[in-house]
């Protein structure tokens, strides 16, 4: 380089400075005058300085990295999983629906006009679905099981493949045989080749179903599927007038026909036929809704984890910047303004946040298959790995916004750190810059809330969750502060180790408040889930059977009611039977008679007016049904023969704004019937019997062909053995559903869901543990000092370990108290006030779940503190 001084470096090394002044002077010209040197530091220069100061391994910012990794990872995994399932559902829409479009109608077959309209659109496959009973085995020891009977024609399946366990891809079974789902075969104790009776008609089991392509679109059924030929139900008398069955018509549309247009055309042609039409893109609305709700719930859990991780982010950034106080002051001495400091460290934090988020996104995507396999049978389809283009940016945005909200306060405080700190050991404590914080923290929070609400399936639920989470975090922060103050007031124990352990909880710089907030949230969630799950399960096990009938019987022929009652009473004397007429129909119009609102004309179904969707159960009665009470109007007299009347559920009254005297038109077996509203009723849904939104005067609908539905209550202690078998044999076309089996299934599902939710909530505990490890790392210097002094004073490693156990044991004990109080308090509100169930938590299970969480916390705390025990006093004293 020209003009550079010619000092000999070797002569200038330490201790050899003689002759310095005699050396020729550098002739380097003065540097170019600063260009814009009085303005803010350009971002490029700020980044150059930031990059130099930033360790390649993000030393000091690893807590930020880990917290964002966990938070964005959880959200990315959730987003990818739900995205993968949704795309699988969309891709397999035609297969799931069994065609491009489907029409469903209750209690009748398709009319000739309907059939010809469908045939004109493409290839049609038709069939029927119904609840039925299957029996098998010798007469003396016959097994019975409810089944979802599916009668299909030779064209089935129009799309996809029906596979049996023996590997065959099949269509409809040969005449006289059936395909049976594994669950039903197991319950009936049958294998291929055995005989199974449905509706009293024998069939040979031709194979066990391994893969039913359209299972998801079939909807809820009590029992596993049994597939038979389309002519079987009629032969077995299962589709007699009044029987509860559905006819399905599926069409593989001819090329060029748009499914939505085809549905629109059919709706226009048969507006009041009671057809429920679906297209392949809405093949399984129930599954889609489940996935949407599950995804929403998991996103909220992920957000809660991210909020806790935010505490770690704030702590991590604060201790990182504290460790850099000297560097910040030095930069200020060299001419950096507070704005320049903010830029330099913002870039460092942003780089670490970006790295953590990107790593989290990658890990989130990679663990999705594990998550899918953990959720197992809860998922409607086994999803492959599909990247959802919206989910990953959304997860990253959440992560970076949370980082911004929590990193802004320490960053804004650090920019105030004065240059004079280098020259004077004492500087005035830095106030938290509340005003300056308002903008980034406020904007960040608003963006998080906006993003959560914008992508929410249910805005109210999301808003409620966000508000509750914020309230809980504030409450926990308050509790943390209170615990800190309380421990400071406790008398100091005589035991020195206990004394130090206690003091460590409130000494200056102690993170007790942050730890109670971060760990308390996850552990409270553990307790909350455990008390809710065990209470619900206990209610189902103990309380529901006491309230619910022992059997539900569907499709009891109304002309055989006496015979039915006799059969029940002969088998179980004293059994209580309640039978009601059971019909199905769709509400077509409602409102004042002269200007009724047609449901088909509604752009959207009003909130809470679920009864307007598709067909609903209908009944008629002479008297107010048991468990119902009139809120307005009058009940019709027995034997009433005037204008057809109807009594309506008060909730539907509110949802539709109905008035006494208004009319309701229904479609019953394809025929329109109108009735005047005579009364509104309050229904006690807890009575767990048959409850109907619309109850008509008998003269309104009793002429329509229909059967009865019945409940049977067995007196306590009475033997009920043989009742199921006798009823199935005597009434082969009826379905007898045992409540006990249903409740067992419900409890199994509840337990499975509870495990899945607990697994999701574990992310919040993991985030809390990251905060704990960060707090331990931040306090390492002062703890090392304490440890070394204690070692110098003669403390053994065992005593030091005991000190750590005592300190974290105290913390864990306080966390246990906080988690139990909050978790069970909120759980009580949910169970007793919201669900109106009995408070029946299984405390053993609750303590086991909480204990596992606490053991995890204590284990990590001790593992994080172990390096302190290995400190060598002499070496540490030199370094301190």
């Amino acid at each position, binding site marked *: 380089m020209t003009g550079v*001084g010619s000092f000999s470096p070797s002569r200038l090394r*330490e201790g050899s400075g003689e002759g310095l002044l005699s050396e020729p002077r550098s002739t380097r010209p003065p540097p170019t005058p600063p260009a814009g040197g009085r303005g803010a530091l350009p971002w490029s220069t700020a980044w150059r300085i930031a990059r130099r100061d930033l360790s390649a391994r993000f030393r000091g910012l690893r807590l930020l990295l880990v917290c964002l990794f966990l938070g964005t990872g959880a959200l990315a995994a959730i987003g990818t999983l739900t995205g993968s399932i949704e795309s699988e559902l969309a891709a397999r829409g035609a297969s799931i629906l069994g065609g491009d479009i489907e029409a469903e109608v209750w209690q009748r077959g398709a009319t000739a006009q309907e059939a010809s309209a469908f045939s004109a659109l493409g290839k049609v496959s038709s069939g029927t679905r119904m609840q039925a009973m299957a029996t098998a085995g010798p007469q003396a020891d016959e097994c019975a099981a409810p089944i979802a009977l599916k009668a299909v024609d030779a064209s089935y399946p129009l799309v996809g493949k029906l596979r049996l366990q023996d590997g065959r891809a099949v269509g409809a079974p040969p005449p006289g045989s059936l395909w049976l789902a594994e669950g039903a075969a197991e319950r009936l104790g049958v294998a291929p080749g055995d005989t199974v009776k449905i509706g009293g008609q024998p069939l040979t089991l031709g194979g066990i179903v391994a893969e039913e392509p359209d299972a998801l679109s079939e909807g809820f059924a009590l029992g596993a599927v049994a597939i038979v030929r389309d002519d079987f139900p009629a032969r077995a008398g299962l589709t007699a007038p009044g029987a509860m069955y559905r006819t399905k018509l599926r069409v593989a549309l001819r090329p060029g026909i748009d499914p939505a247009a085809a549905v629109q055309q059919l709706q226009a042609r048969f507006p009041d036929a009671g057809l429920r039409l679906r297209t392949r893109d809405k093949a399984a609305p129930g599954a889609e809704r489940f996935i949407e709700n599950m995804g929403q719930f998991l996103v909220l859990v992920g957000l809660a984890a991210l909020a806790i991780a935010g505490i770690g982010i704030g702590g991590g950034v604060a201790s990182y910047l504290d460790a850099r106080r000297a560097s910040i002051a030095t930069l200020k001495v060299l001419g950096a*303004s507070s704005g320049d400091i903010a830029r330099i460290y913002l870039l460092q934090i942003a780089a670490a946040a970006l790295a953590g988020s990107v790593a989290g996104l990658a890990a989130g995507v990679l663990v999705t298959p594990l998550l899918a396999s953990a959720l197992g049978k809860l998922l409607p389809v086994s999803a492959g790995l599909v990247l959802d283009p919206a989910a990953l940016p959304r997860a990253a945005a959440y992560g970076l916004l949370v980082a911004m909200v929590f990193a802004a306060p320490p960053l804004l405080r650090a920019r105030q750190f004065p240059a004079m700190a280098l*020259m004077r050991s004492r500087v005035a404590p830095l106030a938290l810059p509340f005003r300056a914080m308002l903008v980034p923290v406020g904007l960040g929070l608003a963006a998080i809330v906006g993003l959560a609400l914008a992508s929410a399936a249910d805005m109210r639920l999301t808003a409620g969750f966000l508000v509750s989470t914020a309230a809980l975090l504030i409450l926990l922060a308050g509790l943390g502060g209170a615990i800190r103050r309380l421990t400071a007031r406790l008398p100091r124990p005589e035991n020195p180790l206990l004394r130090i352990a206690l003091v460590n909880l409130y000494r200056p710089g102690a993170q007790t408040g942050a730890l109670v907030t971060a760990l308390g949230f996850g552990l409270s969630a553990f307790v909350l889930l455990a008390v809710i799950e065990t209470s619900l399960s206990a209610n189902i096990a103990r309380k529901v059977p006491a309230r619910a009938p022992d059997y539900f019987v569907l499709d009891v022929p109304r002309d055989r009611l006496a015979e039915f009652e006799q059969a029940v009473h002969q088998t179980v004397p004293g059994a209580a039977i309640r039978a009601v007429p059971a019909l199905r129909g769709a509400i077509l119009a409602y409102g004042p008679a002269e200007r009724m609102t047609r449901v088909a004309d509604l752009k959207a179904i009003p909130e809470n007016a679920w009864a307007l969707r598709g067909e609903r159960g209908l009944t008629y009665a002479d008297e107010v049904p048991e468990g119902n009470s009139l809120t307005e109007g009058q009940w019709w007299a027995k034997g009433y023969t005037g204008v057809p009347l109807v009594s309506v559920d008060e909730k539907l009254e509110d949802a539709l704004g109905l008035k006494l005297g208004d009319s309701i038109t229904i479609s019953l077996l394809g025929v329109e019937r109108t009735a005047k509203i005579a009364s509104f009723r309050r229904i006690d849904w807890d009575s767990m019997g048959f409850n109907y939104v619309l109850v008509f005067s008998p003269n309104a609908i009793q002429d329509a062909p229909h059967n009865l539905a019945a409940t049977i209550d067995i007196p306590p202690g009475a033997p009920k053995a043989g009742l199921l078998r006798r009823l199935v044999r005597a009434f082969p076309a009826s379905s007898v559903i045992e409540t006990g089996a249903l409740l067992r299934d419900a409890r199994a599902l509840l337990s499975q869901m509870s495990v899945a939710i607990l697994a999701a909530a574990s992310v919040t505990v993991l985030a809390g543990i990251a905060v704990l490890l960060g707090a331990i790392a931040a306090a390492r210097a002062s703890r090392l000092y304490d440890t070394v002094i204690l070692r110098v004073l003669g403390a053994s490693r065992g005593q030091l370990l005991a000190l750590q156990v005592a300190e974290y044991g105290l913390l864990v004990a306080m966390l246990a108290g906080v988690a139990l109080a909050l978790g069970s308090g909120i759980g009580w509100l949910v169970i007793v006030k919201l669900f109106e169930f009995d408070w029946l938590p299984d405390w053993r299970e609750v303590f086991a779940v909480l204990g596992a969480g606490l053991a995890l916390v204590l284990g990590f705390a001790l593992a994080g503190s172990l390096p302190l025990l290995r400190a060598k006093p002499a070496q540490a004293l030199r370094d301190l």
Partner: protein
Amino acid sequence: MTSPPPAIAAQNLTLTLGSGQAAVEILRGIDLEVPQGQALALLGPSGSGKSSLMAVLSGLERATSGTLSVAGENFSGMDEDALARARRGRIGIVLQAFHLLPTMTALENVATPMELAGMPDAASCARAELEAVGLGHRMTHYPAQLSGGEQQRVAIARAIAPRPVLVFADEPTGNLDTATGHDIIDLLFARHAEAGATLLIVTHDHELAARCGRVITLADGRIASDSGT
């Protein structure tokens, strides 16, 4: 021809830290004028206020009252950020404990103030300055890899490289052994002479003070003597 303006012109400077009953008067009415290019030593016992005076004169601390003009800039009334910007490229500071940025190499440490000042050729100037202080072979070393004397040389190179009009040194040899301290002082004077900047050294060391053209002794926050008057 008019004489150039003084590098430092201070009138009735006071500095009080704390407030109320805890208030401590550190500087009590300092009047001082330092011509450009002068080498000035601030002497005085511990607690006399010499480091505080240097902090005020270099813009690290704001005076409680009085007027102050440094390198043609009116420091009175400037806030911390304005003072930081005023220091850029114009004031070099060498501190007793070196205060190099531990995560940066020697070269990066020297380049940083020039980068903050927006100088375009910061890296090459830093390289040249490190060569000039005899650390051409240590450019990529981190502070922890350098001896105390080497670290202080880097600090001097960092202060001098932007070619400031004023260089402040607070006990520059306080953390060094005697021989190394001598080398550092030689180097500081050599670089001061080369750069032609005004030099203000805070020291306890009378021998070092004697090498300066002017010596001011502080006692109890006031100028007790000034060899220049």
